[in-house]
């Protein structure tokens, strides 16, 4: 294919490159280096992936490496891993705290209602007109149920008599000084209720 003189001279030139060889003794070490790399790869392959990951992180940060070359504190991969672990544990702990204060069965509103707790029963009995009881905020809820009982006042003699279906014991009611006959409206005050 290439028979002319320039082609032959070109091939002579290219053959000169065969004499470009590395310095004497270069190949004495060559195979040893190859085998060292292979041994390192083989030993690395024997290590689980996740430990290799930490090990690489340690080496990339130029930090100290233990004899096994696997663990030390200070590598960036280790730092990231530990941060993620702390964040996860912290998140779980926080979630458990929230669950205990709000959502645990023994403290649930339904359970409290079954047990007749006043702070929960009251809003259910007196929701009319307040609007606040609809909110589940215990501090804003009227702590007692409000029930009305008809009171009948009758005059017999000079002192009025008061009767009611209210089961409260007598003596809790006081009539202000009534004068004159007939049926009058009296303000009835329970003993501890505000005026």
């Amino acid at each position, binding site marked *: *294919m290439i028979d002319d003189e320039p082609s032959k001279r070109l091939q002579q*030139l290219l*053959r000169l490159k065969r004499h470009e060889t590395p310095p004497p003794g270069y190949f004495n070490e060559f195979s040893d280096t*190859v*085998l060292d790399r*292979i041994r390192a790869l083989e030993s690395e392959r024997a290590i689980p992936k996740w430990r290799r990951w930490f090990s690489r992180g340690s080496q990339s940060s130029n930090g100290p490496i233990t004899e096994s070359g696997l663990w030390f504190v200070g590598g960036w991969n280790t730092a990231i891993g530990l941060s993620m672990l702390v964040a996860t544990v912290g998140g779980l702990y926080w979630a458990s705290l929230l669950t205990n204060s709000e959502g645990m069965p023994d403290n649930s509103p339904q359970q409290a209602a079954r047990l007749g707790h006043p702070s929960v029963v009251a809003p259910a009995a007196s929701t009319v007109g307040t609007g606040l009881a609809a909110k589940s905020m215990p501090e804003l809820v009227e702590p007692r149920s409000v029930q009305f009982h008809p009171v009948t006042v009758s005059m017999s003699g000079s002192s009025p008599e008061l009767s009611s279906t209210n089961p409260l014991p007598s003596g809790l009611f006081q009539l202000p000084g009534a004068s004159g006959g007939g049926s009058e409206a009296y303000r009835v005050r329970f003993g501890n209720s505000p005026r």
Partner: protein
Amino acid sequence: MDPIAESTESTILARSTPNAEEASEAVRRVRRAKAGDLAAYDQLVHQFQERIYGLCYHMTSNHEDAHDLAQDTFVKAWQALKSFKGDSSFYTWIYRIAVNTCLNHLKLRRNRTPHLSLNDLDLQPENHPDLVALVSDKTPRREANLAELQRRLNEAILKLSEDHRTVVTLHDIQGLPHDQIAKILGVNPGTVRSRLFYAHQQLQGSLADWVK
């Protein structure tokens, strides 16, 4: 060709292409190495290290790169040795790994200015008859020294495309026959000849002062 030159060429070619005995020895070593025998693989490395290094060096014209690439080639070959079924010879197989390793390296470093480190290499061509002929009175540039010749030669080779550089390296420098190169590259022998033809044309243009 000069008898001395012919002798030198035959020595180099014998080193480039393994004979039957060497090939059968390689088969035995490969069999042991596949079973995990690292000592057998060490012998394989010794058997092929100069050729693989030479290929990497002539593809990159850089000693440091050639060192790394040749080592990478043997490490990759060890890792892939279990997948070597023996359809081709180990020689062809490891050459293929070396060529691919070099081509990948060249693609990654395409924008990097090639660094010629010929000073690191032991070039003693002053005793070679080809060179004596080239720097004799037949050459147009008698005053040129060897370093200039080396520099021009490497620059011309580095200007070739990677495909053309590969065939020139394997055929003209390392002395592999066309069909062997075709097996290594996974192309037809005709493709190898075609690439060589165009590569030679380009090199003749680049080295016109030396080849006319």
